């Protein structure tokens, strides 16, 4: 993939964006068990095919948006603003709770050092 169409800015070089990942439903912090919380933190669908995922326009409009990408060909067939999510798509992470997603990139999943 070279170009990613931002729903606000149009097609831009993919290096302008940060990949956030599959939006996943965060368990309720008050009632979740440690096991459920860790499953939320660590497990991925990691599908080969069409996936719905979240991106962030890092050096552009600095907005979060959703995208449908084929993970074998890296073709992107649609992107959407948070309020225009297609039926059945998980709500985007960090849009209601920006503090939850930082500029840490894919490495941030690790329990490091």
């Amino acid at each position, binding site marked *: 993939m*070279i170009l990613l169409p931002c729903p606000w800015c149009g097609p831009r070089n*993919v*290096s302008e964006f*940060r*990949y956030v*990942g599959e939006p996943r439903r965060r368990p309720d912090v008050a009632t979740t068990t*440690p*096991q459920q919380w*860790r*499953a939320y*933190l*660590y*497990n*991925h669908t*990691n*599908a*080969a095919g069409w996936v719905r995922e979240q991106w962030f326009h890092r050096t552009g409009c600095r907005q979060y948006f959703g995208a449908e990408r084929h*993970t*074998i*060909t*890296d073709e992107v067939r649609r992107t959407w603003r948070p309020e225009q999510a297609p039926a059945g798509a998980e709500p985007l992470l960090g849009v209601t709770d920006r503090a939850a997603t930082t500029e840490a*990139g*894919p*490495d941030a*999943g*690790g*329990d*490091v*050092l």
Partner: protein
Amino acid sequence: MGVGGAHDGSRNGHRPTARYSAFALFTRGLRKSPWPRAWRAHDLRPSYDVVIVGGGVHGLATAYYLAANHGITDVAVLDKGYIGSGGSGRNTAIVRSNYLTPEGVRFYDRSVKLYERLSADLNFNVMFSQRGHLTLAHNDSSLRTMRWRAEVNKLEGVDSEVISPEDIKRLVPYMDTSASARYPILGALHHPPGGTIRHDAVVWGYARGADAHGVHIHQGTEVTGIQVARDRVTAVRTTRGDIATPVVVNCTAGWSTLISDMVGVRTPVATFPLQAAVTEPVKPFLDTVVVSGSLHVYVSQTDRGELVFGASVDPFTSYSMRGSLEFIEELAGHVLALMPSLSKVRLLRQWAGLCDMTPDYSPIMGPTPVEGFYLDVGWGTYGFKAGPVSGESMAELIATTKTPEIIATFDLARFADGRLVGEKGAASVGH
């Protein structure tokens, strides 16, 4: 039965493996007779005692040690492409054991020990070159991690020390160690037993050794499903037919989620491409492997003189193995920051492989809730060096159904239990 029985291929009623010796080279040279194939093609049997999915170094080493150490030879290794077509044929072949956790250090050190005698064990030159490995520190926090690693390494008996910029300059005269460099070098972790190996030769050597023991290697055979009855593996579906088996080992690295999904075992794996590149050959000038975590780059020189460059994984998950211009531009900039004299050297090619990243940069090895379904995955950007020890311990696990101590800490349950084995500080750039 010990390792090193590879030469003794007649034991299972198969034709003996050709010895590779100076004498054999000489006589074949005179007679111009072709060498026999190092491993053969077979029809698929309707059943095997053990089916290994994935013909990379992990799958082939597991098959080899099952046969050589435990006498289990009714084994099939299936690969959808050709052997070594995954990460095992695409990596930058760095071998080292200077990890961060004691468990990690012990594990990778066992692999280095096995690699040291692998050419003899397999009668196949794997060109292991223990030329030394340097991880540069450009800031205080990396220097601190290196000090930490050096102390853990030494406690585990692994040769590893933090050295000064002057010592670095002595080892790598072409490196810019001046204080005025764009990212000045404050020190480095020096690991003399680290180095590089001929990755294809390791794959071929294990394949040849396994074949000599009667293991069937099936290339062009894709696993499309796994049958489970009452929480037990019973059969594997492939593009060439079905195979009944009580044991399936998932050795498919970047594709491993797709295989685990077939039996409903969830793993915390995400697949990221990792790219590398190689230059035209130049005169030998670089003995050691040089890694810079801050610059996200590493360099080594092959025996042919090419410079091999690598970096961190691509910034988003993907099953695509395409290279990108961004990668090569960024890489070139970082290489030149380290070694400005390389500015006229031309790149020959770049490529990518798939890496099965885990949250703690450690592998996932062992049994699963589905009886007979074993994992040897989560090899990320660092798993080639672990091929021998993984094959040895997975073979022991399958033969005895007891988890060997050396891999106990890498079990799948650690993620749910919160027992991560954090190796990011030792594995995110220097593979």
